[in-house]
């Protein structure tokens, strides 16, 4: 028996590896009326904390998840329903929700798993969530991977297909990057779109990924509906070369952790788990060579940026949106270019809800 007037707010799945989340603080109370998109609760994952924007609107009848409790993805956090629904019915939903958590069934559900596809000799790992609409493809930056879109992919996939992929040399993709040039990386992304049957997509790229999607638009304009460039590489000459070279060279936690703080406006976002995940990536065979090669695409020998993204965009006839974190220390925001959000370089993690709004 399901009453369509009752809506369940559930624990989101922010990224592939998220299995549980810990309730930090509610911003709403039972009896409040909320609208879709309101900030409702802060949730901590083992990687990073985020704010859940309500996927539903209406009267909050019951908040089930107490601050401090850790709950599996999919667990009901709160019940939203109009006053006409009587308390007994709400109680039944609450009991059912608690039973679902207690049974352990939610933990068993692994959710969608990433797939592998061959693109011109490169094995590429990707994951698509949602369906319909004009597809969106998200491309990460240097040393990142598809999981960096953890706060963006799921909410965006509510009404359209959203695909994240690992560039060659990154994440779970094969570690051979060839010459590591922008053309090679863009060629893999274009080939990837063909391989998975995406005819035309909205491309979103962060940092190096921003330059990559710009190069895709230049080489294959017919495949691109729009470009959204988040803190893209290739605007101006300045870059934190010490960070980029240090990241590529670091082999230990003690070397890596201080560097990672520069990625965020709020350095406390660099958790033990985030450092550990990056070290696990960096230790994989072939990653050191891949990063060293791609570094040569990003930086000149004089430690200035080697890519010229505005030049790539000349003659590209699709809508282009550029967004920067105002406190970006890795690629300082150039004057007069793009919009600003309150974040550092990892704006899609630190100001994820703003980015989701931009993309919608």
């Amino acid at each position, binding site marked *: 028996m399901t009453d369509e007037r009752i809506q369940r707010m559930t624990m989101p799945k922010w990224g592939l590896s998220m299995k549980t989340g810990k309730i930090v603080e509610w911003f709403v109370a039972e009896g409040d009326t909320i609208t879709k998109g309101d900030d409702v609760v802060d949730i901590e994952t083992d990687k990073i904390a985020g704010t859940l924007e309500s996927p539903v609107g209406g009267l909050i009848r019951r908040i089930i998840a107490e601050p401090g409790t850790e709950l599996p993805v999919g667990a009901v956090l709160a019940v939203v329903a109009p006053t006409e629904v009587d308390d007994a019915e709400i109680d039944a939903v609450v009991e059912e929700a608690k039973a679902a958590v207690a049974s352990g069934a939610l933990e068993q559900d692994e959710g969608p798993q*990433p797939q592998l596809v061959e693109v011109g000799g490169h094995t590429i*790992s990707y994951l698509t969530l949602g369906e319909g609409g004009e597809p969106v493809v998200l491309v990460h930056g240097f040393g990142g991977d598809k999981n960096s879109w953890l706060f963006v992919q799921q909410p965006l996939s509510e009404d359209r297909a959203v695909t994240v992929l690992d560039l060659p040399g990154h994440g*779970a993709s094969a*570690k051979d990057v060839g010459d590591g040039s922008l053309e090679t990386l863009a060629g893999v992304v274009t080939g990837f779109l063909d391989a998975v049957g995406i005819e035309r997509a909205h491309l979103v790229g962060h940092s190096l990924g921003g330059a990559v999607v710009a190069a895709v638009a230049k080489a294959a304009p017919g495949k691109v509906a729009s470009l959204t460039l988040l803190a893209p590489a290739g605007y101006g000459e300045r870059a934190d070369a010490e960070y980029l070279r240090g990241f590529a060279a670091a*082999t*230990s*936690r*003690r070397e890596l952790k201080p560097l990672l703080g520069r990625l965020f406006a709020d350095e406390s976002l660099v958790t*033990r788990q985030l450092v*550990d995940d990056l070290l*696990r990536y960096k*230790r*994989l*065979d072939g990653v050191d060579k891949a990063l060293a090669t791609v570094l040569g695409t990003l930086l000149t020998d004089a430690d200035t940026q080697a890519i010229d993204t505005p030049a790539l965009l000349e003659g590209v006839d699709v809508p282009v949106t550029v967004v920067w974190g105002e406190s970006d220390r890795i690629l300082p925001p150039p004057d007069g270019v793009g919009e600003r959000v309150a974040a550092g370089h990892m704006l899609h993690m630190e100001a994820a809800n703003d980015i989701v709004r931009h993309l919608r």
Partner: protein
Amino acid sequence: MARSITYREAINEALAQEMERDPSVIVMGEDNAGGQGSPGDEDAWGGVLGVTKGLYHKFPGRVLDTPISESAFIGAAVGAATGGLRPVAELMFIDFMGVCFDQIFNQAAKFRYMFGGKAVTPVVVRTMWGAGLRAAAQHSQSLLSVFTHIPGLKVVAPSNAYDAKGLLIQSIRDDDPVIFAEHKMLYDVAGDVPEESYAIPFGEANIVREGGDVTIVAIGRMVAMAQDAATELASSGVECEIVDPRTVSPLDTDTILESVENTGRLVVVDEANPRCSLATDIAATVAQDAFGSLRAPIQMVTGPHTPVPFADSLEDLFIPDAAKIAGAVKTAVDWKK
């Protein structure tokens, strides 16, 4: 992609991937093929606890089944290493190293030094350590400190499946003799391990948990015990930082010292006998180099100075557990001058 596999499977996978990658890697030890060199899956035991199972047939001629003569086959492995192979020899129980100790400490450990760097000895001796298997006094010891004492040997003690794979790959690629100590009670414990090859550098401790009140340095199986204790202590408001050295030679003293500088308190957990042990070694290092940071006496949680008992109830008492660790943490936190 990472998936969940056991410590035993992680070690097997590391061996298989390195044998695939490098034809100079060979495996040798007792019971690899049921003790008689015969083919056939039923007879290919893969060592006493089945860690190398499957390799005998997968790499014909490269998995040697040896007689029960550690002095002979460890010596042969050391010689083969100086001759250009990368042997991984299984010395069943660390307790048996007495019969081949000359080959390890007076030969393998000395070659690089005595030949002025012109000879290297890339041999790995895999061996089981630790109590808990009801295997009595001659099969249950934690003799890591004996090897750690000797310059020229590297000593590795993974506490989980991820570290086991990455540290064994590093051990095989390393040009020096490595004692790779596998805790026998961890073989069936699973964890997330990438399918791809990866190497974890030696001398880099893992921060298993962050906390500001007390540093717990724990080795091997004791890492999980320390995690249980830390979970319990967190509910009473005491935040433990757990450092797993992963390799005890080289030892990442920087990470240990930095942690103690933050917390001001140290508890060392080592299931070995207490005298001249890793616990005393780590405690002495911190007492010397971070004395000014200490707010309480260093606590050591170890086995007693006895052989490991055979009686179940006594063996359980011998091994440090979460309650003993939590007790030591409380002593450190509550300590007043």
